[in-house]
């Protein structure tokens, strides 16, 4: 007779049958007489493990049973156990459990992590250009793994080397159930050994199943029941004498059950879905006293299971079995675990204002047009560039964490020393002379004379030529680094608004003549376009303020002299901008 023949024979015949408990039996049980009777008699007893029992243990029935039994039980930790945990045995155990484990990513998750439009905007160079994305992907992988682990730990006690595939099943004719197809390891051995009179699930609940329901719930017994079962020779795992290991297994196990598939057979097993309240048997709202409400013993809703005391419990169990783990629920649980990073690159609302000043060095280039060689030599010997300066304000709009758009107003003044010599300059100095005049022997007087002294010579005249301009720099920059220190490269164009000059210039007769602001016939009032490039280092001073240093170079595309000038002259400018960056719109 197979294991199911007896069940098939009785089928539902005993479903409504009630048998009276012998008087005093429950009292004895409650009074622990039975426990006392058994005492240590079975301590050293070795008995063969019934066939299929280990499979059930493997299927975590035993874990769940023990988990339920040991709920609210405290036990001293054996000496050295924490050391083992510290030594990573536990970690290795968990790691071994999750080795090769994979969890499906909920639909749409990747889209949230990496929006499509983002891909379209920045193809390629993901890791280099968007290290945050790389970090995000890595975080998602780790988070997904962790989430999957937590999820499975919460919802399923998968064994090492097994895979659970949760597949919603259509309801059967009785409107029940949802079963999950799982691979089963020795499924034919799962039911019978643990099915006693009190904890066996009713067959009708699983009539549609070819295999007897692996009545996980049937393994759920109260503490007393557990002991009774063991006493009745149900082969409670004597080898699992360690409560701690059982507790560990209970933690790992979940209410979602499966069957193994060690033989490669496909089998069905019911799945108990976890409810959201830690209820595993019965519904407290229905005031059905036959249901036992067990509070979750962990805040993460891991539940302990128990063995129903009546056949009605099988209905509740079936209700639990009917529960499906929806994809939405699955996704929701993932979201509890995975913290999706904000897509800051597309939502940077910052505005910065930069104020800066810069000492500059100007580089002059002169191309001859119609000037004589002597003119150019004289000009070259007369002019020397001096330290110049620039100052300005810029508005900075970060397109994302790396790309910055800048526009501003820049004032620059190029200083040039012009030295020329003027000859036969007479310098008149007032002097006081003292003379001793002898008018006659013995008549000496001292004469103080205030007069002028003229001296002749040449003058080296030094004039400061100033080339001033207002410009609008428009640049785009890429910056990288951390919050405290960022580096950036910038490039753009500089639009000249106006330019004017002051100083002296050499005329065609090699004489020095003054320039004025209104017009000189030599220099343009607008020098057009320039190219700008810079490298910036930004140091955070506070959340709203940064200091930056930015060496830069500006190359003017066109000359500053007009067509009538005998030469073409242009300046290039290099400088070191020092400034402050103020966040105008930090949130």
């Amino acid at each position, binding site marked *: 007779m197979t294991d199911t023949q007896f069940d098939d024979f009785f089928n539902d015949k005993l479903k409504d049958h009630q048998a009276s408990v012998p008087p005093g039996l429950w009292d004895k049980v409650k009074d622990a007489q039975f426990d006392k009777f058994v005492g240590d008699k079975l301590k050293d007893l070795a008995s063969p493990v019934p066939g299929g029992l280990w499979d059930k243990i493997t299927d975590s029935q035993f874990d769940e049973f023990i988990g339920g039994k040991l709920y609210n039980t405290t036990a001293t930790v054996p000496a050295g156990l924490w050391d083992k945990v510290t030594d990573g045995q536990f970690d290795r155990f968990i790691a071994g459990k999750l080795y090769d484990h994979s969890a499906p990513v909920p639909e749409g998750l990747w889209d949230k992590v990496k929006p499509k439009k983002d891909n379209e905007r920045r193809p390629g160079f993901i890791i280099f250009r968007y290290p945050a994305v790389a970090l995000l992907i890595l975080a998602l992988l780790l988070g997904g793994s962790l989430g999957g682990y937590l999820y499975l730990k919460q919802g399923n006690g998968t064994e090492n080397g097994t895979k659970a595939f949760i597949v919603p099943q259509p309801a059967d004719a009785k409107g029940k159930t949802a079963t999950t197809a799982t691979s089963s390891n020795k499924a034919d051995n799962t039911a019978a050994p643990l099915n006693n009179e009190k904890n066996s699930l009713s067959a009708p609940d699983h009539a549609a199943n070819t295999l007897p329901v692996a009545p996980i719930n049937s393994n759920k017994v109260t503490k007393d029941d557990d002991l009774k079962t063991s006493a009745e020779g149900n082969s409670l795992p004597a080898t699992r004498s360690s409560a701690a290991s059982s507790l560990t297994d209970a933690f790992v196990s979940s209410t979602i059950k499966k069957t193994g598939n060690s033989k490669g057979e496909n089998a069905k097993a019911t799945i108990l879905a976890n409810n959201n309240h830690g209820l595993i048997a019965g519904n407290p709202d229905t005031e059905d006293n036959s249901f036992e409400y067990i509070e979750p013993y962990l805040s993460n809703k891991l539940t302990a299971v128990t063995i129903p005391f009546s056949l009605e419990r099988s209905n509740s169990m079936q209700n639990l079995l009917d529960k499906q783990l929806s994809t939405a629920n699955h996704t929701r649980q993932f979201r509890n675990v995975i913290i999706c990073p904000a897509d800051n690159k597309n939502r940077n609302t910052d505005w910065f204002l930069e104020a800066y000043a810069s000492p500059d060095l100007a580089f002059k280039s002169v191309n001859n047009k119609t000037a004589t060689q002597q003119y150019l030599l004289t000009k070259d010997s007369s002019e020397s560039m001096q330290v110049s300066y620039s100052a300005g304000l810029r508005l900075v709009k970060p397109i994302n964490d790396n790309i910055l758009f800048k526009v501003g107003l820049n004032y620059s003044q190029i200083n040039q020393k012009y030295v020329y010599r003027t000859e036969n300059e007479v310098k008149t100095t007032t002097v006081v002379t003292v003379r001793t005049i002898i008018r006659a022997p013995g008549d000496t007087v001292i004469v103080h004379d205030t007069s002028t*002294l003229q*001296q002749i010579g040449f003058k080296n*005249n030094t004039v400061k030529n100033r080339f001033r301009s207002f410009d609008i720099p428009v640049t785009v920059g890429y910056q990288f680094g951390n919050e405290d220190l960022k580096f950036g490269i910038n490039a753009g164009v500089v639009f000249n608004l106006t330019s004017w000059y002051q100083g002296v210039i050499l005329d065609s007769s090699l004489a020095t003549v003054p320039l004025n602001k209104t017009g000189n016939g030599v220099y343009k009032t607008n020098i057009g376009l320039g190219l700008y490039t810079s490298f910036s280092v930004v140091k955070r001073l506070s959340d709203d303020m940064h200091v930056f240093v930015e060496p830069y170079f500006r190359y003017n595309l066109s000359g500053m002299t007009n067509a009538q000038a005998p030469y073409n002259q242009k300046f290039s400018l290099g400088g070191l901008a020092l400034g402050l960056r103020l966040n105008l719109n930090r949130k």
Partner: protein
Amino acid sequence: MLSSCKKEVSENFNLYTGNPLNDTVWTRGFTSAIAIHSLFENLVPDLIVDSFEVSSGKSLRFGDSLEISFNAGSCVGQGSSVPQGFARLELIPMKRKGDFIRMFRPTVAENGNLLETGGGFFIRVSKDDKELTLAPNATFKLKFNDVDLPASNMQLFYGREGVPAPLKGIDTAFYWIRDFDTTSLKTWEKISNNPLVPSYRGYELNSLNLRWVSANRYLDSTLPKTKVTAVLPANFTNKNTVVFAVFANQKTVVNLKGDYPSRSFNTNNIPLQASIKLISLSKIGGDFYLGSKDISSVEKVTSYKFTPGKISFGDLIRYLNNL
């Protein structure tokens, strides 16, 4: 600081080394190397040149104001031989005070005595570029007019030059020495009744010497004399400047010598209460400077200060000619 920031031009003045204007150093000795000599090379009046037959002699007339007569054989050359042929006669008349200044022949006699002059001449006779002299006891007759009324007691004076006489520039050793014949010079006049024709009055003398001849007399002032000192700015030193005291109402020109210790120019023997004008002539580099100081009455003051100014050469000549 703000004003210094606004300074657009800075000047760095550099003296020309060797430029005379920057030379404010006085010299202890009036050497021929000093710059003032060149001034008088410029101021020397033009020569009046003529010629005559030395062996036959000749009276040369230059209008009504000047007549010079050489007797036959009065001029001799080296070895007292009378050259044959024509000799070259060169004349420089000094009729005004400015002429004496231009020739740097102050009217000062030996020992610094001041003279009043009626006029003087530089007369040179040469043959074949060799200067001739008068034969012993030979004379030449000079008749010249005086721009002023001739004085009655003028005497003949000769110029005593330094040895050797400088070919150019200033002869600081020069002074006038009176002829042994101290009789007063004969005066003459030619009165014109035609208003368009001037009248002439002057002196007539017979000179025993060529070159520097004048009609002078000692200043007859009985007033005490004093020392007049001129103080000029530092640019005007004894190397580039000469100072003269010119009497206002008589032809007396006195040179104020440069005094190194006091860096001033001075002269003695200026009568008190005299009306004089201090005139400084300078040549610094290529520039001429003229300074003047009118002193209506010389007093016993310490010094007179004035500052010369730059003047063109033409204006300087005109100024001197009108003294």
